[in-house]
C-alpha cells in the first residue's frame, strides 16, 4: 500500500508538487532561521563571556548594582586571597581578575603638552604572566593588526580605530588620564606596542588593553580588581552548573548586609542576557506556531483544490466500495509522505543557506558603530544537531493538519449521489 502511495505521489505531480514546494519553502525558512538565531545568540553569549561576563563573575555587591557604570570605586579589595580561596573551593574553574575602566588617552607634542586626546575604554587583564590564559581567551594574538603584544610593563595595545584617530605610531608614548579607585585624578604614561581589532564594535571603538599590574598601579588598586571572572575548564557555559556554583559561593562568601562583600552572578544574569535569550526562545516558538498555522491553511486550501481535482477519483473509489475512513486514512498517510519529502528538501536547502552564512558570515559592522552591546560585527549561522530535524516538526504537522481538514469533505459525499455525480 505504501509503495502504491509513493508511486502515486511521484507519478501524479499535480497531486504533490505544490504541497511539497510549500512545505519545502516553510521548512527551509524554519531551518535557516533556527541556525541563524542559534549562531547569532551563541556568538553573542560567547563574546560576552570572553570580554565581559565570564561564565560566572564575582563583584562587590555595590559594584554589581551599578555594573553598567563600571564603578571602580566599588571594586573588590583583597582579590589575591579571594582567588586563592576560589582555587581551593572550586578547583575545576579558571579564575581571572579584570579591571574595566574609562579614561582619556592623551598624546603629547614636542613640548609634552596635549597634541590629541581620545576617549578610551580600558580593559586590564593578565597579559604578562607565564600562566596567563587571557591572550588566548580574548583572541588577542589573532586580533593584532600592527606591532606586537606587550612584552614588559608599561606597554599597551589600543584599538586600531583609536590609533588612527590619534595619529599614532607603534612605540609612541601616550598618557592615560583617569580616576583612581578613590576618585583622585591619575596620569600614567604607556607605550603603544600594537593595535587590535576584535570584530566587536563596542571594543573596537576605543579599547585599550593593559596588563592588570599596570592598571592596579595607575588606578591605585593594590590587591583590588573590579571583577573576578570564572570559566569552566572545557570553556562551555553550563547554566545549571553556573547556578549551583553561584549558590554555593554566595552562601559561603557573600554577606547581604555588607555592600562591599563579594557576590557571584552567572552569565545569564548579566548584561540582560537572560531576558534576551528567553525572548529569542519565545520568538522561535511563536515563529514555528505561526508557520504551522499558515502552512496548514495553505495546505488545507491545496487539499481542497486537490480534492476537487481528485473529485472523480475519490468518487469512483467510494463507488466501488472503499470505506470512507480507509480513504481518509490513506490520504493522511499520503500527506505524511508529502510532508516528509517537502521537509527533506526544505531541510537540505535550509542547511545549505545556513552553511554559507556559517562560513562566509554577514558583516553588519557598518550598522554597529554606536552599539554598546557586546556582539560580534560579523553575524554567522551555526548548524547544530537540532537543525537537522527541527524543520520536520512544522513540515509534517502542517501537511497532516491541512489534509485532515480538507479530507473531511470525503465524509460529506453521499453514496446515492455518486453515480449521478460521476455521469457528469
Amino acid at each position, binding site marked *: 500500500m505504501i509503495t502504491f502511495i509513493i508511486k502515486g505521489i511521484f507519478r501524479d505531480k499535480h497531486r504533490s508538487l505544490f504541497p511539497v514546494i510549500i512545505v519545502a519553502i516553510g521548512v527551509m525558512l524554519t531551518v535557516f532561521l533556527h541556525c541563524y538565531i542559534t549562531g547569532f545568540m551563541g556568538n553573542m553569549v560567547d563574546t560576552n563571556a570572553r570580554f565581559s561576563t565570564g561564565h560566572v563573575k564575582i563583584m562587590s555587591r555595590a559594584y554589581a548594582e551599578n555594573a553598567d557604570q563600571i564603578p571602580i570605586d566599588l571594586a573588590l*579589595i583583597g582579590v589575591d586571597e579571594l582567588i586563592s580561596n576560589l582555587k581551593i573551593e572550586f578547583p575545576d574553574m579558571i579564575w581571572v581578575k579584570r579591571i574595566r575602566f574609562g579614561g582619556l588617552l592623551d598624546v603629547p607634542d614636542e613640548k609634552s603638552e596635549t597634541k590629541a586626546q581620545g576617549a578610551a575604554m580600558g580593559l586590564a587583564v593578565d597579559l604578562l604572566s607565564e600562566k596567563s590564559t587571557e591572550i588566548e581567551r580574548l583572541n588577542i594574538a589573532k586580533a593584532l593588526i600592527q606591532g606586537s603584544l606587550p612584552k614588559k610593563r608599561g606597554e599597551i595595545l589600543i584599538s586600531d580605530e583609536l590609533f588612527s584617530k590619534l595619529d599614532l605610531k607603534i612605540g609612541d608614548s601616550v598618557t592615560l588620564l583617569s580616576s583612581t579607585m578613590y576618585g583622585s*585624578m591619575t596620569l600614567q604614561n604607556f607605550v603603544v606596542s600594537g593595535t587590535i581589532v576584535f570584530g566587536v564594535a563596542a571594543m573596537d571603538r576605543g579599547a585599550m588593553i593593559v596588563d592588570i599590574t599596570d592598571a592596579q598601579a595607575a588606578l591605585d588598586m593594590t590587591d583590588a580588581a573590579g571583577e573576578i571572572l570564572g570559566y569552566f575548564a572545557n570553556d562551555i557555559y553550563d547554566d545549571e552548573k553556573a547556578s549551583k556554583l553561584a549558590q554555593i559561593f554566595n552562601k559561603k562568601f557573600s554577606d547581604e548586609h555588607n555592600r562591599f562583600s563579594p557576590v557571584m552572578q552567572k552569565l545569564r544574569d548579566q548584561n540582560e542576557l537572560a531576558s534576551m535569550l528567553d525572548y529569542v526562545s519565545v520568538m522561535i516558538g511563536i515563529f514555528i506556531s505561526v508557520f504551522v498555522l499558515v502552512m496548514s491553511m495553505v495546505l488545507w486550501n491545496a487539499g481542497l483544490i486537490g480534492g476537487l481535482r481528485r473529485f472523480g477519483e475519490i468518487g469512483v473509489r467510494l463507488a466501488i466500495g472503499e470505506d470512507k475512513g480507509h480513504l481518509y486514512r490513506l490520504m493522511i498517510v499520503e500527506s505524511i509522505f508529502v510532508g516528509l519529502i517537502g521537509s527533506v528538501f526544505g531541510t537540505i536547502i535550509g542547511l545549505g543557506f545556513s552553511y554559507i552564512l556559517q562560513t562566509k558570515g554577514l558583516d553588519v559592522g557598518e550598522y554597529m558603530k554606536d552599539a554598546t552591546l557586546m556582539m560580534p560585527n560579523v553575524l554567522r549561522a551555526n548548524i547544530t544537531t537540532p537543525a537537522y530535524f527541527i524543520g520536520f516538526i512544522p513540515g509534517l504537522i502542517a501537511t497532516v493538519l491541512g489534509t485532515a481538514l480538507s479530507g473531511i469533505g470525503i465524509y460529506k459525499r453521499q453514496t446515492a449521489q455518486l453515480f449521478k455525480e460521476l455521469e457528469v
Partner: protein
Amino acid sequence: MRNVLNIKIILFLSITFAYAQYPSGKSILEKIDQNMSSTNRIVTSKMIIHGSRNIRTIESRSWVQGTDKSFTEYLSPVREKGTKMLKLEDNLWMYSPSTDRTIQISGHMLRQSVMGSDLSYEDMLEDPKMENNYDAEVLSEETIDERSCWVLLLTAKNADVAYQTRKIWVDQERYVPLKEELFAKSGKLLKRLTLSNITEIEGRWFPFEMTFKDMLKTGEGTKFVIKEIQFDKNIPAYLFSKAALRK
C-alpha cells in the same frame, strides 16, 4: 466689627514692621563678600575626605584670583605630591611629576569632584563675589549654634553658575554664612555646607573649617580645613601660566 478691623490693622502694621527690620538681601551679600571674597588669596589647606571605604587627607596650597585664575599644588599624600593644577577662565591644566606631562582637561571637569572629595574644582579653585552672581531675598531669622542668623534665598542672575539657587544662613553679627544648601536648577539639593571655626583675620571674619556633603555621593562628606590663609598679596603673574606647572 470695629475690633476686628483694629486687629487687622495691628497685624498688618506688625508684619510690615517685622519685614522692615530685615536688612535688604543685597546689603547682606555685600557684607558677606567683604568677609569671604578678596582680590586674591593664598591658602594652605587640607581636605579630609570621608569616603564610603576609608578616610583620606590631601594637603594643598592654592593661589586664587577671583573666578578666572588659580594655581594649586598638592603637598601630600605621596601619591599626589607635586601634582599641580592651573585654571585660567574655563580652561584647566594638570601637571603630574610622575609622567612629566601637562595635560589640558575638558572644561566640564570644573564641576566634577576634586580628588574624590565632595568639592568640585569650581568650589575649590574659584573665589566668586556672591553679589555678582545672585539676587538675594531675606526669608526669616533662625539660630544656629547659638548664633542668630538671617536666612537668605539666593537666585542666580545667569544660567552659567553651578548652583542656581542657594539657601544660606548668615551670622547676623559677623556676616559669615554658617550653613548653606546648594540647589540645581531643577530644585534638587546638590550639596550641604556647614562653616565653622569662624576666626577674625586681617580685619575680616572667615570660616577656617567647611564641611561639604555632596548629596549625590555616598560617604560622610569632606572637611576642608584651612591651615593658613593670606588675602590680597602680590602674586607673581608667571604663577598663572603653564610654564609654572613644570617648575
